[in-house]
C-alpha cells in the first residue's frame, strides 16, 4: 500500500488528544455548590494525572475516528507491487501447465504453437521448481505429476495429441487449484495455454486459486479465423415401393469475414460417394445442402464432407442411417371371430384399431387364434398381445417366456379366460383371482393412475384428458407380487393395470376387456383409449426415436443397441439360442471394449467418427452403428481476452510467465489512487466513528448530567 500524501501521518499525534482527555479527566467548568465541605475537606486530594481511563469504548472510538480521518487524508492506494507483495517473489515454484487439447486446437498451427509455448515454460523451470502437465478438453487429464524432471514433461508433450473434446476451462482450473493447494512450494503458478474459446467459459464458474497463486494465460488464438463447419443434419424419410428412402439435408456455417464460393460438399454412404454438390456461403452466415434421396438399409454409415480449410475435423459430419421399422405386433385371441385382417367381430378389434391410428411409428399387427399360434410366430415380433385367451401350448408358452426374457413386450388382456390354469406364471404380473362384479348403480372407475410411469406421464396435465369417465362393471382380481408395479387401480382398490419386468423385457396385464362383447366396461369407446393403447404398445416395444448421431462426450450403454434389436424384432433368436444383453464396441481408432454383461456398463463417446457395436448372438448381421460428431459450440472459434479471462478467474490482474502485470502498466499513482478511491471509505468510516462517539457520549452525559444540574439549582 502506498500513500499520495504521507505527510498527513504527522497528524497521528492527534490520537494522543483523546487519550490525554481520558487520562486527565478534565474538570467541569461549572462549580458544584455543596452544603458543606466539612467531610470532603478531610479526604486527601489525588493528583489528576494518575487517574485511570474510565471509558475504553469512547477512547477507542475517538482514536479510531482520528486514525481513519488521517488515513483518508493521506490518500492511500494499493499498488500492483503490493499485490505482488502478497505473492512470494523468491523460492521454488510449483507450476501447473494447463494445455488445451480440445478439437479446436486442431485449427491451423494452434496445436504446434501451443506445444512450443508449453516447452518454453518447461525450459524456464529452475532446478528446484516443479512442473505438472495437465491436458484438458471437457475434463482434465494429468499427464505428468509434479516433477522437477523436465525431460519427462517434454516427452509427455511430444506424445500429446489433439482430441475431439469440447473446451471446458473450469474443470481444468479446479484441478490446478487442487494441485496448487497441495503444494508446499512458496510460489504457485498456473500457465494456461489455449485458444481461449468463449464457449468454454462461464463467468459464474466458482474458481478460487490459492492465496498468492498467479495465472499466466498464453493464447495461441488467431485474430482472424476462417472456418467452415457442418453444424447440423436432418433426415427426411419416405416409403417408396416397400423401401424407405432418406433425404439428407446438412447445414453449413461460415465463421469467417469473407464469403466462401463453390464449396464442394460430398455425401458418402458406407465409403461410396453417392452425392456431390457445391454451395456458396456468405461471410458469418449459414447455408444448407440437400442431397438426392437414397435407400436406407440397416446400420449404414453416412459421411458428409464439405470443402477444405485450416481445421478439417469440423468439415466432416457422421450419420448412422437405419430404416425406421414399424412395430411388429402379434395378437393372440380366443378362437372364433376373424383374424388378420381383424373385422368388427374380432375380439381385439378396438385395440388393433387404436394401434393402427399411430403413424410414427406405425404398428404392423397380425392376429391369430390361440389354437393356431406357434413358437415360430414370435420371430420378428416386438410385442405380443394375449387377448383373453385360454390355455396355451407348452411349446408356445416356453417360447413366449424366452421372448420376454430377451427384451420382447407382452400385453395380457385378462377376461373370461385364463392362459395359465393355476392363475400364475413367471410372465404374469401377479396371481389371478375370480371375477369382481360392481354393484348395479355403483359402476367402477379408475381411481388411481401412476403418473410417474412413462405410459401415464403425459396425462399428468389435466388438460391432456381424464380417465375418470370410463365405467368398469366387471374385472378379474389380480394380486400383484411385491416386485410388480401397479400402474392403475379401480376406485375400489383392485389392480387395473400391472407391470412386471422379466429379463430385459416388459409385461403389462390389464384386468378387464377391451371390447364391448362381454359388457365389462365402456373404456374402448372413450377418447382416452387410443392414445393409451399406442403408448402401451410403444413402451412394450421399447420404442425410441433412432439416434442418427451423438456428440462427443456422451455415454453409450447397452440399452441403445438392445432397443434397436427389439425394434427390429430380432431380439428373440428363432433357433432358441440364449441371447445376453452384452456386446463389443469398437471405437473409430480401433479400440475394442466389452459392454453389458461381463463388461463395462457404458462407454464414453470421446472420438469423432463411427463406433461399431456387435451384440452377442446377432450372427453375421451388420453391427449397430453409432455416429459421433464434434460438439457444435466447439466450432465457434471466437476467443476471450486472456488478461480479462485471468482477472475473472483470480480477481487480480493477469501476469506474464515472468511475473509482469498485464493490466494498466502505465498508470500513475494518482490515477491508481483515483481509480481505487480508498480515501472515501476511510472518510466515511471516520465520520461514522465520530457520530457513534457523539451518540454514546451524549447518552453517558444524560445518564449523569440530570442529577448534576438539579444539584446546582439554588
Amino acid at each position, binding site marked *: 500500500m502506498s500513500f499520495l500524501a504521507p505527510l498527513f501521518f504527522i497528524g497521528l499525534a492527534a490520537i494522543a488528544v483523546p487519550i490525554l482527555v481520558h487520562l486527565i*479527566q478534565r474538570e*467541569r467548568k*461549572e462549580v458544584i455548590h*455543596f*452544603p458543606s465541605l466539612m467531610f470532603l475537606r478531610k479526604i486527601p486530594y489525588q493528583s*489528576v494525572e494518575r*487517574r485511570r481511563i474510565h471509558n475504553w469504548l469512547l477512547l477507542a472510538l475517538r482514536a479510531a475516528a482520528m486514525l481513519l480521518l488521517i488515513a483518508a487524508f493521506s490518500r492511500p492506494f494499493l499498488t500492483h507491487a503490493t499485490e505482488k507483495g502478497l505473492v512470494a517473489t523468491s523460492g521454488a515454484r510449483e507450476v501447473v501447465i494447463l494445455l488445451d487439447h480440445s478439437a479446436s486446437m486442431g485449427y491451423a498451427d494452434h496445436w504446434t504453437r501451443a506445444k512450443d509455448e508449453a516447452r518454453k515454460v518447461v525450459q524456464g523451470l529452475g532446478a528446484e521448481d516443479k512442473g505438472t502437465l495437465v491436458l484438458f478438453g471437457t475434463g482434465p487429464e494429468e499427464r505428468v505429476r509434479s516433477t522437477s524432471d523436465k525431460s519427462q514433461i517434454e516427452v509427455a508433450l511430444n506424445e500429446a495429441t489433439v482430441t475431439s473434446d469440447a473446451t471446458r476451462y473450469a474443470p481444468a482450473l479446479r484441478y490446478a487449484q487442487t494441485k496448487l493447494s497441495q503444494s508446499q512450494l512458496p510460489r504457485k503458478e498456473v500457465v494456461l495455454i489455449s485458444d481461449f474459446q468463449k464457449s468454454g467459459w462461464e463467468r459464474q464458474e466458482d474458481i478460487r486459486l490459492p492465496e498468492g497463486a498467479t495465472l499466466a494465460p498464453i493464447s495461441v488464438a488467431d485474430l482472424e479465423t476462417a472456418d467452415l463447419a457442418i453444424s447440423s443434419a436432418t433426415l427426411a424419410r419416405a416409403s417408396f415401393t416397400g423401401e424407405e428412402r432418406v433425404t439428407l439435408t446438412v447445414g453449413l456455417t461460415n465463421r469467417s469475414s469473407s464469403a466462401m464460393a463453390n464449396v464442394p460438399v460430398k455425401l458418402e454412404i458406407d465409403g461410396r460417394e453417392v452425392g456431390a454438390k457445391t454451395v456458396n456461403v456468405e461471410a458469418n452466415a449459414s447455408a444448407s445442402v440437400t442431397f438426392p434421396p437414397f435407400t436406407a438399409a440397416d446400420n449404414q454409415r453416412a459421411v458428409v464432407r464439405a470443402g477444405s480449410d485450416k481445421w478439417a475435423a469440423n468439415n466432416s459430419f457422421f450419420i448412422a442411417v437405419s430404416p425406421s421399422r414399424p412395430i411388429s405386433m402379434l395378437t393372440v385371441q380366443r378362437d372364433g371371430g376373424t383374424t388378420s385382417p381383424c373385422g368388427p367381430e374380432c375380439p381385439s378389434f378396438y385395440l388393433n384399431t387404436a394401434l393402427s391410428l399411430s403413424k410414427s411409428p406405425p404398428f404392423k399387427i397380425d392376429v391369430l387364434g390361440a389354437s393356431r399360434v406357434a413358437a415360430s410366430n414370435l420371430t420378428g415380433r416386438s410385442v405380443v398381445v394375449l387377448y383373453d385367451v385360454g390355455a396355451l401350448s407348452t411349446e408356445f408358452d416356453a417360447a413366449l417366456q424366452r421372448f420376454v426374457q430377451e427384451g420382447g413386450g407382452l400385453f395380457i388382456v385378462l377376461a373370461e379366460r385364463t392362459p395359465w390354469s393355476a392363475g400364475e406364471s413367471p410372465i404374469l404380473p401377479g396371481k389371478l383371482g375370480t371375477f369382481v362384479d360392481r354393484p348395479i348403480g355403483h359402476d367402477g372407475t379408475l381411481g388411481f393412475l401412476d403418473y410417474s410411469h412413462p405410459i401415464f406421464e403425459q396425462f399428468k396435465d389435466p388438460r391432456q384428458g381424464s380417465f375418470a369417465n370410463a365405467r368398469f362393471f366387471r374385472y378379474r382380481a389380480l394380486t400383484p407380487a411385491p416386485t410388480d408395479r401397479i400402474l392403475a387401480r379401480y376406485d375400489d382398490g383392485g389392480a387395473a393395470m400391472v407391470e412386471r419386468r422379466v429379463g430385459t423385457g416388459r409385461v403389462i396385464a390389464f384386468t378387464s376387456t377391451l371390447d364391448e362383447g362381454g359388457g365389462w366396461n365402456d373404456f374402448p369407446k372413450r377418447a382416452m383409449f387410443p392414445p393409451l393403447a399406442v403408448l402401451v404398445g410403444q413402451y412394450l416395444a421399447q420404442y425410441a426415436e433412432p439416434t442418427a448421431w451423438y456428440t462427443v462426450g456422451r455415454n453409450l450403454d447397452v440399452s441403445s443397441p438392445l432397443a434397436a434389436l427389439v425394434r427390429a424384432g430380432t431380439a428373440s433368436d428363432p433357433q432358441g439360442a440364449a441371447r445376453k444383453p452384452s456386446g463389443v464396441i469398437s471405437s473409430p481408432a480401433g479400440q475394442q471394449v466389452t459392454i453389458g454383461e461381463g463388461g463395462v456398463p457404458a462407454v464414453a463417446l470421446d472420438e469423432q467418427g463411427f463406433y461399431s457395436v456387435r451384440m452377442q448372438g446377432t450372427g453375421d448381421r451388420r453391427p449397430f452403428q453409432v455416429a459421433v460428431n464434434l460438439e457444435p459450440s466447439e466450432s465457434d472459434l471466437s476467443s476471450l481476452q486472456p488478461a480479462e479471462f485471468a482477472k475473472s478467474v483470480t480477481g487480480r490482474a493477469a501476469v506474464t510467465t515472468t511475473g509482469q502485470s498485464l493490466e494498466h502498466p502505465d498508470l500513475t499513482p494518482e490515477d491508481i489512487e483515483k481509480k481505487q478511491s480508498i480515501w472515501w471509505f476511510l472518510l466515511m468510516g471516520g465520520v461514522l466513528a465520530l457520530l457513534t462517539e457523539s451518540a454514546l457520549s451524549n447518552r453517558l452525559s444524560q445518564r*449523569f448530567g440530570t442529577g448534576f444540574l438539579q444539584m446546582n439549582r439554588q
Partner: protein
Amino acid sequence: MESHVVPGARFVDPKILSRIRNLELLARTVVEGFINGLHRAPYFGASIDFAEHRGYVPGDDIRRVDWRLFARTDKFYVKQYEADTNANFMVLFDISKSMSFGSHAVTKIEYASYVAACLAYLAHRQRDRVGIVTFDQDIVNYVPPSAKHFNVLLHTLDRAKPERPGRMLAPLDKIAEHFKRKSLVALISDFYENPDDVLEALKPYRFHGNDVVVFHVLDPAEIDFPYTDASRFEDLESGEEIPVIPSSFADEYRKMIKEHIEKLTTKFSEARIDYVLLNTSKPLDEALFTYLGTRERMMKVR
C-alpha cells in the same frame, strides 16, 4: 398508584407539597390527611375522656361536680379527665446557608418548613402554645410560644431565607435563657457541626426539663453522593472551593457521613433526646410520628 405504608401518606409526599405555597393549607392538608389514616385520635391535652372521680375540696370549680353521683350518694365528687393541661411547642429552625441545598424538587429548607408547619399545626390543634426561633450563626427571628402565634409562626417560616453561615452553639445558648416553662422543643437542622458541640448546645434544654426532638434534614445527594465528573465543589456557607474527583472521593465521603449520623444518633440517645433523620426525598410521616410519640410521653399526666 404509589403505595404507602401509612394510609393517607400520599398527603405528605414532599414533591406534591412543594406545589402548595400556603403553609397553613399545606400543614392542614398534611396533618388532616395523616390523621385520617390513623385509627385512634392522637389529641391530648384538652381531653374529654373521663378518668376518675375524686372528692370535692373547696376551691374546685362547682361546674365539675358530678351531680348525678351526688343524687345517688349524697356526697360531692368532681370528675377528673386525662391530660387536661396545655404545653409549649417550640421550633428551633436552622436557616443557615447550607439548608438551601437541594438536588431535586425540594430543598432542605423547604422540607424543613413543611415539617415545622405540620408539627406546629398538630400542636395548635391540641391547643398547645406554639412558637419558633430561626437562627443561623445568631438568632434571626424569635416568636414566643402562644396559642395565638400559629399564623405568626407560619409567616416566620415563609420569610425564612438561608443567607448566612450557621453556628449552633451561640444562638441556642441564647434562646435557652428564654425557656421559663417546660416545653416540647423541636430542633430542625442539617447539623454540619461536631456532634459534641451540638449536644453541648442542647444540654441546657434538657436541664430545664424540656423534651427535645431533633430532626436532622439531609438531601439524598448528601447521603449518596451521586456525582461522577471531576469538578470543583464550593462550600455554600464559606464559599471555599476544592477540586473533587468523585470516583475516588465518593466511597470515603459516604463512609464519613454515615459515621457522622451514627455518632449523632448515639450521642442524642445517650442524652435521651429523640433523633430523627429526614431524607428530603421521603414523605413527612416519619417526622409526624416521632413528634406524636414524644408528645404522648410528655402529656401522660393528670
